[in-house]
């Protein structure tokens, strides 16, 4: 069995660690490039959302490299992500690949069902080994998320462009390779210190921008045209509303214990949208309200083109923006997005926020 999986930001590193820890032969999909996207787009339905197309590119490249088993996540609707695997399997079959697909669905209160699906993958290790491996993976994901959140703050102050990103990537590689929780903790501690040690510009005010939107688009830098890096290098402190560790906590752990998480987000969204709409539409609205309350300068909303849940959010965000006074910009991205146009729009948005902030200060100090 040669296993592969789709890319999704740093999660694929954790996934690789988990699968190879299970004593399986792992064939990671090659890094996402233009060729991956072209392959994916060529063989996917035209109006499918962008993540499906990138996944398809990953799968085709990995299967061509010799993989024969795909590990993919699933869902129970109403977001169409829940039906990805079915469509991808049929397309790959028609392309003539010989493979099997193992779909991991959110258990919705039935943790045993998830374990049943995992069986063929876990056959080679003992239960004790499996438990410790899952724990290690969980800690690895948490460590990666913590490091990433710190990177987004440090990058806005770096003296030399790209130095924070370089330090981050080195630590990320160490986190990916750590074999035990102790090694992981050590790598994280040293990594956070290395980020702190990145030479900083003389202190000054930075803008704060919150990122909301669809989970894949936020997590995969190739898909969001590295929005965090672009903003960070403009000197903007970025905060991302979605982290995979928080998602796992809420959807896999709390829901199987029948507990509800993220009440705060839903409560914040309630005056504008008081119902789930699939995907992350509800959260996009709620997080925007929370960023406004926390005094952020602006919010960037990122969605894959044709994503229905986020289109619902997109229809509501202007009202949120008007009511709370936080500027919001929506970007719907897919294989057609051009980087230059994207960066221009980001720059213009950041410029507006800067002027807005300095205007406010002048107004407050009575100089007008």
């Amino acid at each position, binding site marked *: 069995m040669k296993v592969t999986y789709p890319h999704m930001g740093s999660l694929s590193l954790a996934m690789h660690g988990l699968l190879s820890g299970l004593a399986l032969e792992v064939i990671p999909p090659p890094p996402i490039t233009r060729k991956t996207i072209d392959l994916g787009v060529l063989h996917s339905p035209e*109006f499918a959302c962008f993540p499906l197309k990138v996944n398809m590119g990953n799968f085709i490249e990995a299967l061509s490299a010799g993989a024969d088993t795909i590990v993919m996540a699933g869902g129970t609707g*109403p977001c169409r992500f829940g*039906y990805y695997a079915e*469509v991808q399997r049929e*397309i790959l079959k028609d392309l003539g690949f010989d493979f099997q697909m193992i779909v991991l669905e959110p258990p919705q209160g039935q943790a045993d069902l998830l374990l049943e699906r995992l069986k063929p993958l876990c056959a080679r290790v003992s239960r004790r080994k499996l438990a410790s491996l899952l724990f290690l993976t969980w800690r690895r994901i948490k460590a990666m998320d913590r490091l990433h959140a710190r990177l987004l703050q440090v990058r806005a102050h770096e003296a030399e462009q790209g130095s924070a990103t370089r330090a981050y990537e080195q630590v990320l590689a160490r986190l990916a390779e750590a074999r035990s929780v102790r090694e992981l903790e050590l790598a994280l501690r040293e990594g956070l210190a290395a980020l702190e040690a990145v030479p900083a510009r003389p202190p000054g005010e930075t803008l704060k921008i919150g990122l909301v939107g669809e989970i894949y688009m936020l997590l995969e830098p190739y898909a969001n045209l590295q929005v965090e890096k672009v903003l960070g290098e403009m000197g903007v402190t970025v905060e991302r509303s979605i982290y995979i560790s928080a998602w796992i906590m809420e959807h896999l752990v709390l829901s199987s214990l029948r507990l509800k998480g993220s009440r705060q987000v839903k409560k914040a969204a309630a005056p504008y949208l008081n119902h789930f709409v699939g995907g992350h*539409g509800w959260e996009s609205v709620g997080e925007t309200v929370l960023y406004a309350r926390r005094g952020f300068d602006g919010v960037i909303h990122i969605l894959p083109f044709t994503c229905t*849940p986020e289109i*619902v959010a997109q229809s*509501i965000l202007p009202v949120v923006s008007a009511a709370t006074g936080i500027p919001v910009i929506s970007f719907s991205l897919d294989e057609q997005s051009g980087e230059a146009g994207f960066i221009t729009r980001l720059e213009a948005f950041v410029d507006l926020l800067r002027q807005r902030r300095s205007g406010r200060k002048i107004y407050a100090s009575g100089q007008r």
Partner: protein
Amino acid sequence: MPLKIGIPRALLYYHYYPAWKTFFETLGAEVVLSAQTTKSILDTGVRLAVDEACLPVKLYLGHLADLRDKGVDFVFVPRMVSVEKKRYLCPKFLGLPEMARFGVGDLPGLLDTEINVHQKYRETRSNIHALGRRFTRAPWRVSHALREAKKAQAAYETALRSGRTPRDVLDGQAGQSKDPKIRVALLGHSYNLNDPFISMNLIERLREQGAQVITSEMLRPQDICRGAACLQKDIFWTLGKDLMGAAFHLLDNGGIDGLVLVASFGCGPDSLLCELVERAYRRDRRVPVLFLTLDEHTGEAGIVTRVEAFCDMLLWRRAI
């Protein structure tokens, strides 16, 4: 003066209008429908909605604006989350009241009753009762209206199963042409197929070409369920299940000459499901498929040409 309840002639109107109308009228309200779709209604909707919203949502907002201008007391914009166990409607229905409220300005009162059979069965019942109690104080009258509504809905669905389309029944039209030469399945969302404006009168055009049109409403529910059972994973969209179930059932034993699939541009569920249908039909190699995508820019001439060419080809295939 009875209260005037406005119902937009769009989206789930084609599925549930008889039940809604009977419910409100039994409770003594007056039901006002928006006008038949025109270019100006669609244009208004396009202006009110965000760019990326799908065609039926834009049209819905246009119809709501029409009702607002008609001066109704309330508009009925239910939040239809789920109408059966383990299945949802498309995400746009989940946020429809918000898109209506924030998209269309100065709306009269919004009746945004939540219907969620999968997750909140009991609450759905009490929601409907709460809706009814806005018109009467007597609970028994609400129960009575609900019973009448169910009867009307059952009668409507029976009428559909006799081979008539929702539009045939709702607008009292004749229906199928006398002696059809070919049988064509027309699958897609009811609210696209039955709106003569946005579908460019597709049903009539097919009939003019001598086709007997079969839609998923004309099939028995058990056939649709059996058709949908061909899939490895249960479909979690009700309308998607109808489309897939009908497509697979007709492929196996429907005796159809051709299949016309209609989707609106950027439709989320259909982007995946129509792909699966096309692949299944292609592997089977017996029934030709025509896939039409509709949006507010669709040109009528192009659609007509393709439909005519498709029907000609089906007739030739028969002749061989």
